[in-house]
């Protein structure tokens, strides 16, 4: 309990540090949102006026404190470009990006955990060798290339699924929304599975070599029973940490893959906002992604402590 609180404390400190870094780095970038939004041929007076409206003429520290105070109250500011609240802009995009990355993550986990365990147990068999080889290929190939290939075969040739875009009606037409997400989800899932299957396989191989698994066999447990009872828990410790990393990666992967499939999600919003120097949107998105990564890491740590008693108990005999 005490350790869990401590971990949450560290998480809060990391979040504050991350917000400072995000804020400062974005101020250091060349380019000025006032200049970008007004375009060529504006007078110095007009620029000054807009800057004071946007608050970008204030010292950086003042800007940061104001911004952080707003963020804590749930106010992410107003877009320089569209003049809409940033929170609204982001909320609109969540129904695309969140299902995309979560579905890809769940699909990848469901495929790669059993496949990785199987490939480890049958490491010398044809399936084990094939899984190793294919996953190696999967790691080497870029995500967007997989996406383009799937579009070519399944959308343009076989015409089974849309090549891109998202229905204007959104989730009001669930069938159409799901159809437009299938290819992007599969693309991200393939890329993630390739990495995950390798981690699961090597974690299981480590466990299979351990003496206590042989002890379990010597007591009469079958190969799979022994692995399930004495192996998977141990293998879960490194696998949980890679699952955490991959969950965060699936969000970042969405940025690239939304572009390939012309999906108006968070990734597209981020790219558009960077191009337009729309600072409030960019910093809210970057901070949000960073927060997701940090929170996931904290959850991974807590999960590992729950799995492995050596991480939470002393070496003394149980009380």
């Amino acid at each position: 309990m005490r350790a869990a609180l401590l971990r949450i404390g560290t998480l809060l400190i990391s979040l504050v540090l991350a917000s400072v870094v995000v804020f400062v780095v974005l101020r250091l970038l060349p380019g000025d949102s006032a200049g970008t939004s007004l375009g060529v041929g504006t007078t110095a007076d007009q620029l000054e006026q807009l800057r004071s409206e946007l608050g970008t003429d204030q010292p950086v520290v003042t800007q940061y404190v104001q911004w952080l105070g707003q963020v804590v109250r749930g106010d992410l500011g107003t877009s320089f470009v569209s003049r809409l609240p940033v929170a609204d802009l982001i909320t609109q995009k969540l129904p695309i990006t969140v299902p995309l990355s979560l579905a890809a993550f769940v699909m990848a986990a469901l495929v790669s955990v059993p496949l990785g365990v199987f490939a480890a147990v049958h490491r010398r068999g044809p399936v084990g060798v094939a899984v190793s080889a294919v996953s190696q290929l999967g790691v080497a190939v870029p995500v967007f290339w997989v996406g383009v290939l799937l579009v070519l075969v399944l959308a343009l040739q076989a015409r089974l699924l849309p090549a891109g875009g998202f229905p204007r009606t959104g989730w009001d037409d669930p069938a159409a929304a799901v159809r437009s997400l299938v290819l992007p989800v599969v693309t991200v899932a393939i890329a993630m599975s390739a990495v995950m299957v390798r981690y699961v396989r090597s974690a299981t191989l480590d466990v299979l070599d351990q003496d206590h698994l042989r002890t379990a066999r010597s007591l009469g447990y079958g190969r799979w029973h022994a692995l399930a009872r004495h192996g998977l828990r141990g293998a879960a410790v490194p696998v949980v940490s890679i699952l955490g990393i991959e969950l965060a990666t699936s969000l970042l992967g969405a940025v690239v893959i939304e572009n390939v499939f012309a999906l108006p999600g968070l990734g597209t919003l981020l790219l558009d906002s960077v191009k337009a120097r729309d600072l409030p949107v960019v910093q809210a998105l970057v901070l949000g992604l960073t927060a997701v990564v940090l929170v996931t890491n904290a959850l991974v740590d807590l999960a590992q402590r729950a799995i492995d008693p050596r991480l939470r108990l002393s070496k003394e005999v149980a009380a």
Partner: protein
Amino acid sequence: MTALLSVDDLRVETSTGRTLLDGVSWSLDAGGRLGIVGESGSGKSLTALAVLGLLPEGMRATGRVLLDGTDLLTLPPRALGRVRGAQVAMVFQEPLTALDPLMTVGRQITGPLRLHRGLRGSAARDEAARLARLVHLTDTERILRSYPWQLSGGQRQRVALAMALACEPRVLLADEPTTALDVTVQAEVLDLLDDLVDRTGVALAFVSHDLPVVARVARDLVVMRDGRVVERTTVADALAGGEAAYTRDLVAAARAVTGLPTPTRTAPEDAR
């Protein structure tokens, strides 16, 4: 007396064709005490693993391992699973790695009780506590709730013994069970093993590189070298001067290092 367990012309080869065990034969009577000695690499541990069909991947055993006339080498995996732990159990050299670090000792002992004897819940816990007392663990409640890495080396090996004896096997294979322990703890565990064999009537095959240790618990002796049996004799005869030159070398070496005593202990038949 008919042999309970007999190993007959056992050969173990690697997938690359290297021969690791060559024509190993010995037998163990019900209630017998067999010591298997030899230097490291002589194949003594491999013999024990081959008996239970637990050879590392890529090794193949041929010959016969007869338990009451049933050849364990040709037994299908399910049937072999019913022999392991229930009829023939094993204790390994390094108790820390031989036990699961992520599971409490209590759950590890109740595992085979549930698997072979169908005990669960409080019946299994009570039996685990009885077994813990059988291997002279004190404060059993606390120990059963602990993880292996929270125990001392001696306690861990006692736990491993309790697991192995949980289903009252007829044969106990002990593979260097005291080698990883401190000398004083080693003596305690050997006394315990000696006592357990007397009390439970389990037949013991004790594998060790250490002749004085073997001499404390075994009566019959198999001397191995380079994957072959050099001599089958008794501990008493070997100490009196074995037939094979290699056995005499082993005895002389052990005497030079530790001052090996002449055995005086009585045969276990009249111990109970």
